[in-house]
């Protein structure tokens, strides 16, 4: 299993989640996110992988009636981010997110990337310019947009919009980045670009990615978790999951007998 010297960035401890209608979407999940590693969540539709991912930045707080139970401990703070005394906005300041469908704001390319900085009260034009450039370079989009930073973001292609969303999430130097099926709305070339990008970003931050594409999990991730019906069936090094899974259910899913 994991190298003992790799530090843990965050870990779920016996995490349960209930939607406002009472449905229990997560059942006692415990697993770590290792620092500067990519952890992939796989499993059939409706197995709770997105629900799990959205617990990390408290996105479920946006809808009344949702309930967390258990812990997600973030390091080095050693704090349960689900605790009622934790401000979800502070959590989101440090854990950013990229969504399934590109969701740029109705603003210019520049303003999209600068959004997180503005929200944090940054107004210095020089700092902002530098950060925007750095983030766009980090998202491998700079060369394509540097001459039209003030164009509306909607004029970009789908793949470019998704990289813009990654740049937006990068600009605030997050510690953890959550990817919720980031390539499901993209063509194969744009998908390859995003995957390459995730691998590059690993040196800077910790990544948790939900994917319904097993090849993607095998290509990019260091660790993989297989979920089914709200339960964590198996968690291990990606190599082991895809070559010698220890559970029959995992093997059935990986080999395509199920799911």
């Amino acid at each position, binding site marked *: 299993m994991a190298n003992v010297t790799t530090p843990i960035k965050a870990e779920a401890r016996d995490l349960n989640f209930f939607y406002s209608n009472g449905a229990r979407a997560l059942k006692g999940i415990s697993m770590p996110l290792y620092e500067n590693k990519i952890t992939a969540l796989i499993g059939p539709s409706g197995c709770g992988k997105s629900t799990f991912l959205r617990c990390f930045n408290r996105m479920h707080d*946006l809808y009344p009636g949702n309930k967390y139970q258990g812990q997600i401990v973030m390091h080095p703070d050693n704090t349960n981010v689900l605790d009622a005394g934790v401000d979800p906005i502070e959590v989101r*300041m440090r854990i950013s997110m990229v969504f399934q469908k590109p969701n740029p704001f109705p603003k210019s390319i520049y303003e999209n990337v600068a*959004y997180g900085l503005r929200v944090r009260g940054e107004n210095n034009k020089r700092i902002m310019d530098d950060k925007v450039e750095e983030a766009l370079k980090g998202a491998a989009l700079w060369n394509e947009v540097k001459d039209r930073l003030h164009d509306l973001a909607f004029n970009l292609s789908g793949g470019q919009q998704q990289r813009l969303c990654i740049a937006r999430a990068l600009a605030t130097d997050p510690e953890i980045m959550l990817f919720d099926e980031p390539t499901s709305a993209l063509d194969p070339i744009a998908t390859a670009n995003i995957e390459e990008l995730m691998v590059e970003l690993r040196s800077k931050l910790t990544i948790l990615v939900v994917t319904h594409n097993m090849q993607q999990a095998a290509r990019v991730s260091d660790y993989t978790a297989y979920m089914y019906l709200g339960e964590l069936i198996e968690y291990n090094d990606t190599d082991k999951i895809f070559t010698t899974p220890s559970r029959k259910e995992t093997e059935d899913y990986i080999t395509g007998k199920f799911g």
Partner: protein
Amino acid sequence: MQAPVELSISPRLAKNIRRNVKERVIEVILMLAALVAVATTFAIVGVLLYESLSFFKTVSIVEFLTGTEWTPLFEDAHYGILPLVSGTLTTSAIALAVAVPIGTISAIFLSEFASHKTREIIKPILELLVGVPTVVFGYFALFFVTPLLQALYPDLSTFNMLGAGIVMGIMIIPYIASLSEDAMRAVPMSMREGSYAMGATRFQTAIKVVTPAAISGIVAAYILAISRAVGETMVVAIAAGQQPNLTFNPLESAATITAYIVQVAMGDLPHGSVGYQSIFAAGLVLMLLTLSFNIIGHWVRKRYREAY
């Protein structure tokens, strides 16, 4: 290879004449229904233009557009539309100054802050305001708002544009609030989530993301409100006074274009007289005024349209 065979149309695949005729008839009926509105619009414009044309045979267009006195019922008649235009613009501007901020803020509250329950209570009440007859609003302005204002400015005349404008503004708040709220609620949740995920607060999300995303619908609401204010009749006829007065001072009394039209139309002016024709010329100006606001609104909407 088979030898080519001459093809014929089998009766089972032939054109069904009965069905086609039926479809055609339905299509014509639907088109006629749509044409009623178009034809009415053209008829109104036609009548306005025709009667105005006879009016402009007696009164020069230059005098009409630049004259500063509007006294068609006097012995020494003057036909300068400017006093009526100033009254219309002043009352409309006051109404918008009241309705745009309050309406927009209400919309932001209802769409982004209010709980489902609160919205279900407030929205119908707000929309109830639309159902209040405008004549009631007129008397509300004259007998309630103006006395209140007179407590502040004792010199304020009984008929004044300020009171009428404020009440007209209250009257059009629901239009702006309701339409703007619809536009904001149509902004996809994924866009809000994107903003929250960046660490934005509710207020930042509402102002920096939802409002710009809904701006075309919000501007459409403003345009409708402007047209409504410019064309509003009862409130200004009752509370702003009936004396044409070239002024932009809201504390004074002044007639608007609509107030003049209703005043003359209710009197017994002989058909075909210049005074009678003058209401058509005034109506034409009113129509051009709303039309130009609509065109500006259309342009603004296109310019700032956001596609998701």
